[in-house]
């Protein structure tokens, strides 16, 4: 059981590193927003695995918060991209 959770966490950390590389690499604003959206999902998965590992409700509160924040962030960035497109 523990081994499987460790494997899952290693895979999730690898996914986070790959996603961060996508954000840091020179790419367009939309690409970065998409990558950050994916990163939010990866962090949520990590929190869920961690919560079951520790049997800890606090991590689940954080997961709920992260879901809300991630949605607000991607909507805000989308509106920003649209408004910038209108200016041009």
């Amino acid at each position: 059981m523990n081994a499987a959770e460790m494997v899952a966490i290693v895979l999730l950390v690898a996914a986070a590193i790959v996603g961060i590389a996508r954000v840091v690499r020179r790419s367009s604003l939309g690409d970065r927003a998409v990558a950050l959206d994916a990163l939010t999902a990866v962090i949520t998965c990590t929190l869920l695995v961690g919560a079951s590992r520790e049997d800890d409700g606090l991590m689940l509160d954080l997961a709920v918060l992260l879901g809300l924040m991630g949605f607000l962030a991607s909507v805000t960035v989308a509106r920003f991209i649209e408004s910038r497109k209108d200016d041009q």
Partner: protein
Amino acid sequence: MSDLWVTLVDVVSSVLFVAGAALALVGTLGLHRLADTRSRMHAATKPATLGVALCALGAVLQLSSASDVTKVVVVVVLQLVTSPIGAHMLGRAVGDN
């Protein structure tokens, strides 16, 4: 019988965790591999829904208290409702490039 049951639940939740994590890795790799922003969005939305749902199912099998299970359900419902809306708005904003 009870021991067998506990082992079975452990194995199932392990498989779900590893599957969700592998999906997350494949999704972020897709961000690098695919050609344009909309294809990348296609790769990124898979871990956002199915990956989180698999990890949540694995966590539900392990958690002991009912309030924790409720929180997991809230996480999944929130993700399933908000992720398509965010992806839709981003897809419309990104346009044709």
